[in-house]
């Protein structure tokens, strides 16, 4: 496979996201712009300009009408995907590290940083879609409808469960917790990863019944959304920044590498700047894809499972469209199963 290199950013990537149809790819980096790309050929559709600081996170609504971004300038901005205009700005006391639309697109969660005396919070905002033709998108609620305050360890990442029933959050101390998305009460809290090893990413399966966490403790875990049971553990040899579950084939993709500060002291070969593919069920590593010059900060997979993209500390997004060996690969037991 020939990767497509997207070099629209001048600084390290923070998050990339495919939309639900997989035709668009959004990327945010430490520079102040958001880029939208056609995933098929790597053409840049446009940029969303307006943020004043590094952008930590991006998410696109399920119908690809609105785009939300969270930034170090303490705002969450909502954009019109089609025109690139900013339609709404919400101010927060601290930086916003993660935003995500609920599965139906009617709500947006924003994870705020713990800093300057403010505790880390998860705020939930109601989202309206104007008149349905892309007009009047500016009419949005001013205040969050719900605010969950993390008193013990701040949340670093969060996402919505199936049907938007729970909010699943990953914490600084390596624990994962489940909040009721109506009341904001903590339902469960599990120390999924080693204590004090931050969870860097949470990504859900297509039906949101399970999710994968990536942590600094060099492991990724597949967990059930309902009861936070740990289903699978993928062990790697480097701190992980991101992990994703591939549709169509039963794999997971992990991205990581040394912390950015240690990178200059190691060669690219040792730095382990590779996307790692593990088999979702058997937990074996089945291959790696090289290419980045720095750690992978984020990986995302096409919702149809035909491509994946990775964003690195080196400022590049690499989009890979899978070719035949990827789809053909089967374990011996799987093959036997098929024969029957």
């Amino acid at each position: 496979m020939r990767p497509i290199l997207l070099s629209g950013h001048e600084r390290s990537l923070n998050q990339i996201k495919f939309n639900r149809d997989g035709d668009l790819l959004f990327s945010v980096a430490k520079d102040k712009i958001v880029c939208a790309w056609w995933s098929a050929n790597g053409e840049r559709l446009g940029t969303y300009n307006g943020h004043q600081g590094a952008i930590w996170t991006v998410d696109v609504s399920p119908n690809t009408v609105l785009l939300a971004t969270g930034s170090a300038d303490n705002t969450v901005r909502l954009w019109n995907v089609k025109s690139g205009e900013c339609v709404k700005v919400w101010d927060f006391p601290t930086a916003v590290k993660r935003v995500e639309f609920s599965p139906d697109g009617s709500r947006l969660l924003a994870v705020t940083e713990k800093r300057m005396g403010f505790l880390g919070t998860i705020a939930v905002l109601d989202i309206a879609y104007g008149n349905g033709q892309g007009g009047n998108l500016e009419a949005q609620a001013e205040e969050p409808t719900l605010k969950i305050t993390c008193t013990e360890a701040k949340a670093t990442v969060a996402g919505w469960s199936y049907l938007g029933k729970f909010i699943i959050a990953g914490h600084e101390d390596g624990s994962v917790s489940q909040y009721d998305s109506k009341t904001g009460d903590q339902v469960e809290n599990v120390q999924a990863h080693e204590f004090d090893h931050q969870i860097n990413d949470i990504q859900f399966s297509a039906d949101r019944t399970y999710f994968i966490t990536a942590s600094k403790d060099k492991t990724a875990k597949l967990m059930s959304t309902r009861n936070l049971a740990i289903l699978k553990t993928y062990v790697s040899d480097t701190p992980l920044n991101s992990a994703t579950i591939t549709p169509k084939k039963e794999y997971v993709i992990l991205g990581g590498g040394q912390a950015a500060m240690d990178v200059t002291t190691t060669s690219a070969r040792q730095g382990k700047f590779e996307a790692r593919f593990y088999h979702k069920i058997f937990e074996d590593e089945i291959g790696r894809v090289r290419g980045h010059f720095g750690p992978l900060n984020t990986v995302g997979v096409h919702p149809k499972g035909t491509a994946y993209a990775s964003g690195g500390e080196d400022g590049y997004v690499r989009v890979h469209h899978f070719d035949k060996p990827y789809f053909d690969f089967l374990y011996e037991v799987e093959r036997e199963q098929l024969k029957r």
Partner: protein
Amino acid sequence: MSRPANRADWADDEEFDDPSALPPQQVTTNKDGTKTVVSYRFNDDGKKVKVTRRIKTTVVREQVNPQVAERRSWDKFGLEKGHAAGPSFDTTSVGENIAFRPSVNWKVQAAEEEKAGGEKGSMKDQLKDKKVKCRICSGEHFTARCPFKDTMAPIDEPTAGGDAGAEEPAAGGLGATSGSYVPPHLRKGAAAGGEKMAGKYEKDDLATLRVTNVSELAEEQELRDLFERFGRVTRVFLARDRETQRAKGFAFISFADRDDAARACDKMDGFGYRHLILRVEFAKRS
């Protein structure tokens, strides 16, 4: 360079018979449905360059949902506002091809590769069954530790270490044969040191076989299978005709190990493959 050529400026005198005018672009349609486009342009040095491109157009039809189709017609915005459709070169490029084939024993394969590629592993192998031998008394100790060091001169036996053979003393000691100075790169056995510069390409070359009289219908995978029995094959190159994609009749096979290559050369020379008799020899360095 695209300035109007008919301007009669005195400075332009020498260009008067118009070398700056470019021949028009020619487009010819080939039999196999491809197009050949011959165009001319000036390069950075102002020289005229002929560019021949062969273009094959394939139409891929894809069913997408109406929303996706509608999105394809969106205009560009932000920094891309007003730019033409299609990827632009400053943001989008295509990387090197990556061979990604998942496999169960990926780790083992990777380790093997590491071993072949890394200098460390092979050096260790080389030195594995090497014994220390004194140059003075041939005892099992370093020459410097020899009890007869001060009383005896080195034996006039050229070997010092096991496998390096006769070349050893020249590399270590200065040329004992004549009194004149021999620069390091001319000393016998010093070639190994110099070769390091070229890195693995050089090494690669040593274990590459040239196979001729290969059938037109040969496939790279088949050749790989044929040669893989003798050891790890790192590269198979089968020359093909650009037009017909048929094999041209020769191929290069690189082995990870020279010994394997030698064995393969021995065994496969004269091997009947696809009704032709293969001729296998070591590739000459060009």
